[in-house]
């Protein structure tokens, strides 16, 4: 393995940073070490987007460059190794040559206090480079991780629509919009030169960082350091550092491990490496289960989905994680690995209690296996929160329904936000099993939910209304299967 420095590209130059604190954030590095202060800290938890920067990395085949917005406030610096970092300063070397995105933001009066603006510019920049003519829905989705408190968003949306108008014939790849781009050969070549065959490993004042490239090495390191923190997207672990001020002694990064970043569609199931990002896995899942589309649209925000992983969401095991109810009703299982031994465990058996799971010391989630859909099976998931985008569920439900005519052949329902762990609603399921799929039985199932769950009151919702909500969500699912309602308030009246 290599020495104690990391390398990445910034401003056209390869930067080499020695003696990196493993949990120093990209934002701290930019602002405090480089004095590059365009990126702002608004929340230090990946929720406001003022710190949004863009990472350009090689695609898995190594032939293309993928642009991803991320929250620099919770991204640890060593994870940039081998990538290119683009910040708001990268777009306009001097103020006389504004980037079309920046020009549009000025022309449309898209900034007021301006503090959120660099983050918006970077999210818009990714949109500019990846979508030739975004719809309002696509603009909303692209900006879901950026909060603006001044403008009410109308002029920013206008900028997202008009930014293409001024796109010049420009040799600068950064200024070429989607559809008119040259291949960024030079950038790709430069990054290829930074890739490591052996992974990265260093020790700074007794604090260790490992970024192995193969799963055997990963398993061996973790077996040696069972107390280590496994770092994937860091969208939660980042907050341990920025909010709880914890010092992590040993960090093992999953993002470079080839086997963990594999995503394969097999004959009977989808095999998702634990380090596959949410952004990469969601389209594949939606492809097989269209009923999960709105859930995934509402799942966090683009910067979080670009960094966060499905394996991380599961292993973290939050009782309000949004992926698990759906995966649970689908009968997903986990591939767990400890040293050289591998076992498979049903997801629903993984969680024992709040923050307690079935993992043994040194054991980690290697992959998630999601069964493919069978015909005549209805799968749906609903999220209930105060806000459509970038909110944490107060309640999250998922259903898998198999009907034989009017009779329920099998019904599975799983819920988050109602118990210390995400779990199946067994009593409710039993109330419908083998029964007619009708209103009377549905009401029995709704009543049974009260014995499945004893929710609590917290900042997201009160106990009594949580229960009422989940019952109503089940009623809604029933009406959806009956064709009596086909839209939510979020899709109502929208032209996507």
């Amino acid at each position, binding site marked *: 393995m290599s020495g104690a420095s990391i390398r990445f590209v910034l401003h056209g130059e390869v930067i080499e940073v020695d003696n990196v604190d493993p949990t120093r954030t990209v934002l701290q590095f930019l602002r405090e070490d480089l004095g590059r202060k365009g990126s702002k800290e608004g929340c230090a938890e990946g929720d406001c987007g003022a710190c949004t920067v863009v990472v350009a990395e090689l695609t898995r085949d190594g032939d293309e460059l993928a642009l991803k917005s991320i929250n620099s406030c919770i991204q640890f610096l060593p994870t940039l190794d081998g990538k290119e970092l683009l910040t708001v300063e990268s777009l306009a070397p001097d103020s006389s040559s504004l980037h079309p995105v*920046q020009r549009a933001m000025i022309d449309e009066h898209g*900034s007021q206090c301006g503090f959120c603006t*660099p983050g918006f510019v970077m999210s818009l920049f990714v949109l500019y480079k990846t979508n030739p003519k975004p719809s309002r829905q696509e603009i909303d989705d692209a900006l879901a991780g950026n909060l603006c408190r001044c403008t009410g*968003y109308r*002029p920013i949306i206008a900028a997202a629509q008009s930014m293409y108008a001024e796109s010049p014939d420009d040799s600068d790849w950064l200024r070429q919009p989607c559809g008119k781009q040259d291949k960024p050969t030079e950038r790709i070549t430069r990054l290829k030169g930074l890739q490591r065959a052996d992974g990265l490993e260093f020790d700074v004042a007794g604090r260790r960082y490992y970024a192995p490239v193969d799963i055997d090495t990963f398993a061996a390191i973790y077996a040696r350091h069972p107390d280590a923190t496994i770092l994937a997207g860091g969208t939660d672990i980042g907050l341990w550092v920025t909010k709880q001020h914890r010092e992590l002694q040993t960090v093992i990064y999953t993002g470079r491990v080839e086997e963990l970043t594999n995503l394969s569609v097999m004959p009977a199931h989808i095999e998702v490496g634990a380090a596959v990002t949410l952004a990469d896995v969601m389209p594949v899942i939606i492809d097989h289960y269209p009923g999960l589309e709105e859930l995934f649209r509402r799942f966090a925000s683009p910067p979080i989905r670009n960094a966060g992983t499905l394996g991380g969401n599961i292993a973290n095991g939050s009782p309000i994680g949004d992926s698990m109810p759906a995966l649970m009703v689908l009968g997903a299982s986990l591939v767990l690995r400890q040293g050289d031994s591998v076992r498979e465990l049903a997801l629903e058996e993984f969680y024992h209690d709040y923050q307690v799971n079935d993992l043994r010391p040194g054991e980690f989630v290697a992959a998630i296996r999601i069964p493919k859909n069978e015909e005549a099976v209805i799968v749906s998931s609903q999220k209930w929160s105060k806000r459509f985008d970038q909110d944490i569920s107060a309640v999250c439900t998922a259903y898998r329904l198999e009907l034989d005519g009017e009779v329920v052949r099998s019904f599975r329902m799983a819920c988050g936000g109602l118990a210390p762990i995400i779990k199946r609603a067994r009593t409710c399921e039993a109330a419908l099993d083998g029964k007619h799929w009708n209103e009377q039985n549905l009401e029995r199932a709704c009543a049974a939910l009260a014995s499945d769950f004893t929710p609590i009151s917290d900042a997201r919702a009160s106990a009594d209304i949580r229960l009422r909500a989940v019952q109503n969500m089940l009623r809604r699912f029933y009406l959806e299967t009956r064709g009596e309602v086909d839209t939510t308030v979020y899709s109502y009246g929208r032209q996507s």
Partner: protein
Amino acid sequence: MRERAVGRALPHDSAHLHVTGRAAYTDDLPEPRDLLHLAVGMSEVAHARLRGVDLGEVLASPGVVDVCTAEHIPGANNFGSIVADDPIFADDEVQFVGQPVFAVAAKHVEEARRAALKASVDYELLEAILDPLSAVAKKSFVLPSETIVRGDPDDAISSAPRRLRRRLTLGGQDQFYLEGHIAMAIPQEDGRLLIYSSTQHPDEVQTVVAHATNRLAKDIVVICRRMGGAFGGKESQAGLIACIAALASDKTGRPCKLRLDRDDDMIMTGKRHDFVIDYDVGFDETGRILGIDFEFASRCGMSADLSGPVNDRTMFHCDNAYFLENVRIVSHRCKTNTVSNTAFRGFGGPQGMFAIEHVVDDIARELGRDPLEIRRRNFYGKDERNVTQYQQTVEDNIIDEIFDKLVVDSDYEKRRSAIREFNAGSKVLRRGIAITPVKFGISFTNTLLNQAGALVHVYKDGTVQLNHGGTEMGQGLYIKVAQVVADEFQIGVDRIRTMEADTSKVPNASATAASSGSDMNGKAAGKAAAKIRARLTEFAARHFSVSEADVEFSAGSVLVGDRSMSFAELVQLAWANRVSLSATGYYRTPKINYDRATFSGRPFFYFAYGAAVTEVVVDTLTGENRVLRVDILHDCGDSLNPAVDLGQVEGGYVQGVGWLTSEELWWNDAGELGTHAPSTYKIPTCSDLAPDFRVELLQNSANRENTIYRSKAVGEPPFMLALSAFHAIRDALAGSPDKAPNLQAPATPESVLRAIRDASHE
């Protein structure tokens, strides 16, 4: 030809800096080499006597240089500007979770924050009052309750043909400026102190720091170039942050910076007041209000802060656009063991207007009429029924005209019928529509605050430095005032550099608040520029032997008789002939006079008007709701900058919708705020903006009063247009089955489900 610099839709003066990341906020300023970073140790309990504060482990923590507590304050341990009841550091008692107990200074910010968690505090718990109603029951108030009475409300209510009574609950709101609180104090020679503060009120920072550090005002300079949003949250609260930085700087002898982490900011600093409102109204069969009794109880938190004027404004605005002939308004300013609430866009006005709009809506639903009709029925008249409950005659009433135009433009009647039809055939989703008016009084209710100063320098090359007492928080004040000065000199705004707000340039400036920024600073700067122009005119006339009437400033040049020269040439000549090219301007708002003791007089120079129609869709099973279409017509007078004003209207509306729908402040039984970060506190995102959003500024609507270029203030008034969204949600719920649903604000999915459940009497 004179070229009008005002009235043009120029971009924000810093737009090109915003989009490139080059706009420097306080945390972006170069840091002095020996700078220390601060973190604040906060109370963990709502109410307790402090038996002991052990900071041994804090001091021993890596990187820590020093700590600072109440005992290290040489001057006054207070940053409250009206009532001296706001300790900088808790002394022997803590009064809310999050109250500063000490500050720790370290070399790195992370070290300071880590150390701040290591204090060991011994609390002797005391009884805590955690909500306004408990405070009323225990007569726990930060200030005495106030009453306005006009006519005979009791008789009017009891003898009215119809009567309604109701209790309303209305949540507060966090400002959620994207840039959190921050101040950096830098020692200067001979005991002076320089403070960079993210503040709407540099003068007050100067004053409270002077009192806390035992300095005189002359020895303190406070500077603020821009804030990353403020919305009232940096009016009084910035004083606390600056005091802590100043005290730590004095104790350590080094520059100190305090930048609050987002969570700490939300826990430690004040928000919009939440209210419980009881009303009792008597009305006739036509829906006209005959008598009304309001009782307001607001959560002020543990100190008075700005709660006095905030609640006064509630009393002044619980009429909104309606004539209340017989009225009693009682206002309780409740002392609770929660963070002291403060200014937030609208400053109590929104809560008063929420109350009366609810009353009017309830009357309409009780009578089975369209609320539009009942609103019109109760509007202030032009020549009669035109005196407010505080005895100010409404002289500039244009609400009927705005309503009439908006009802037509928005196609209100037709859409209302279509919605009724839709709801009749829809099982789960229901739509609703509402139109609400805004009439908002412009001026600080405390008359003495209505004054402003400016300092304008013209340099030999004909360029201008503009200083005024206003602060830039994103509202576009700097470009608007620059346009005023550009207009006066007839030069381009690119010839004008607006300088940071600086107490050494313009002294004793009022807060940039109460929507008064452009009105007051525009006038003051205009006057300063006019003085210099008059000198130049007089000089040119004398120098070239023409009459002053023959000196004309126009579009970058000056015509002196037959001669034309550039502005710069004239300036150069004037300088060479020893003409002063620097002037101050001073403005005091005319006509206002107001007796706080009797709540009567003319507190407001004029009123700003507007109206909005909002249509929503509500899911009756999940309670989720979304705004579908918005039509706004708002009165900015003759706008100084239509693009900036449009931004204020749009942004204000969306922020108001956040207040009334998704933004919920939640405390647990221990008085801990559970919603102290964007993960749990949900302001609107992009997708919350209505897909159909139509905003228009009222045209040909010059202010009747002699304001700056006959414009109108625009910061706060549009915020309250959002009341239409709340009533549209009620409209959607009406008849399912309750005709007047008991919907609590904010209308979160939970709140909507609760209203539906209560209506079903389960």
